């Protein structure tokens, strides 16, 4: 049963609002992305494959993805803990802590990048401590990992918080009266309820980390094959005016983004079917 494309409505402003929406969306987002895909189409699949299928590019893509996965996993655990503490416990300074969770969203990536580098460089406050046990953080993959943990920090906490707020105490009380220990209740009653939201946050943090540039390049050291992230390769190709190669790597990253977007949507569909809310 198919209705008309746009239902008749007494509301005013259909033409204007649709016009602005479609025009600006096309001009700012769709046409530029289309230009990238066109460039890739002209370059051809074989050309794209030839560019991407080089050790340096594979290493960078794999490095970006692997470290993002590790960082998002740490964010998953710490984010759930953070959300629980912020919703369930009352302690002095809770509001400040709550506001601070958003700082990685608000702080520009370049600022975060140089601050983290200053902190973890061999002469920095944390870098010195680490150096004493022979642990080098800045200019290694550890540095990239820390920067990615920083930028992904808010996602899980912010998606899980509203879900914890909505858990009804009766559920936990029922579990307790049936003889479950607190740990048992948390493992078998509460955590399953948080899982869909936590996974959504995880996927968002992962997507953000894979494409992250500003906060990473300062602390990474950018050594080819060791600490070179995928977005940096695009910049390098652009600086050499090698637009075809830049487009090829860009398309590879765009595909990863789309896959991630699909994953997030699938998680939401699955969770809606499973418990009725996200």
């Amino acid at each position, binding site marked *: 049963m198919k209705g008309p494309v*746009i239902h008749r409505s007494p509301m005013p*402003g259909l033409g204007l609002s649709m016009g602005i*929406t479609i025009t600006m969306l096309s001009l700012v987002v769709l046409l530029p*992305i289309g230009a990238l895909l066109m460039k890739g189409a002209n370059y051809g699949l074989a050309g794209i494959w030839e560019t991407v299928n080089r050790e340096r590019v594979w290493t960078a893509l794999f490095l970006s993805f692997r470290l993002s996965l590790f960082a998002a996993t740490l964010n998953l655990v710490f984010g759930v803990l953070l959300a629980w503490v912020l919703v369930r416990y009352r302690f002095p300074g809770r509001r400040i802590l709550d506001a601070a969770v958003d700082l990685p969203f608000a702080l520009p990536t370049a*600022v975060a990048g*140089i601050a983290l580098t200053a902190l973890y460089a061999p002469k920095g406050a944390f870098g010195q401590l680490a150096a004493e046990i022979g642990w080098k953080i800045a200019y290694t993959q550890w540095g990239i990992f820390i920067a990615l943990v920083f930028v992904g920090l808010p996602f899980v906490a912010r998606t899980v918080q509203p879900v914890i707020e909505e858990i009804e105490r009766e559920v936990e009380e029922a579990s307790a009266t049936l003889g479950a220990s607190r740990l048992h209740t948390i493992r078998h009653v509460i955590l399953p309820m948080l899982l869909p939201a936590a996974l959504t946050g995880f996927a968002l943090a992962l997507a953000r980390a894979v*494409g992250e540039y500003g906060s990473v390049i300062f602390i990474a050291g950018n050594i080819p094959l060791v600490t070179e992230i995928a977005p940096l390769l*695009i910049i390098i190709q652009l600086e050499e005016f090698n*637009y075809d190669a830049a487009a090829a790597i860009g398309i590879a990253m765009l595909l990863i983004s789309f896959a991630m977007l699909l994953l997030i949507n699938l998680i939401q569909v699955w969770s809606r079917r499973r418990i009725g809310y996200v």
Partner: protein
Amino acid sequence: MSDATVSRPVRFRAATEESPATRWTLIAVAVVGLGILVFAPLVTVFVMALADGVVASLESLTHKDAREAIRLTLTIAAISVPLNAIFGVAAAWFITKFDFRGKAFLITLIDLPFSVSPVVAGLCIVLMFGTNSLVGGWLVAQGYPIVFAMPGIILATMFVTFPFVARELIPVMIEQGRAEEEAALTLGAGGWRVFWTVTLPNIRWALLYGVLLCNARAMGEFGAVAVVSGKIRGQTATIPTTIEMLYQEYLSVAAFTLAAVLALLALVTLVLKTLLELRHADELAATHRH
């Protein structure tokens, strides 16, 4: 008589609470974790900025490059944020006041910039409007270069901040429904009058919230702007790209002072955001999303 009688009442713990030891351990982990991850970098920015004293930092801000960068960033934000606000309101109106096929797909497209790497976003704009492209080549021939000039930076900034206002407004306007607007229409109000006197007062805090986040990101965007701007000193270098240049020239105080300016902006944004969430929680999407 045994003296084993309880001298003080036993404190019972509700079955739905963790033991105090567990609770305080979790709080401690949260505080220490956020302290290391978030507070330490923030403090570092200010410590590094003031390494040579207040005078030296303030002096670095009066340098021509710094002044030009601040001016450019303010100009970029003043153009791109209102444009995105207009888009956000129009898109939210279109999506929530009308029924049409493909609505979910349209929302996905609007959200798309959030999942695209800023560098890829910049690359897209270079490929669309660069000198080598069809459109860009023609525009350059007419004397309107986009890439390595202000319009490109504005486009890149708009790309990365595109969803902020719309995605804040859409849930709020869905929840408010159409009844109030329909009532105003039956009473004879025109379209614009309905918008200004009925819709806008209902969504003003959500709009402000979206604009606030959009502005913070617009002023701080680095990756996308670095790709399209060409980072020409005094011409196309924004605050974030100037920070990078100063940092790479080992002008640490100057770099961190500009960074401190942006960090202050971030802090002000967070304070205003928290205030909005406290005062107008019921009119924001962020505070009661499901």
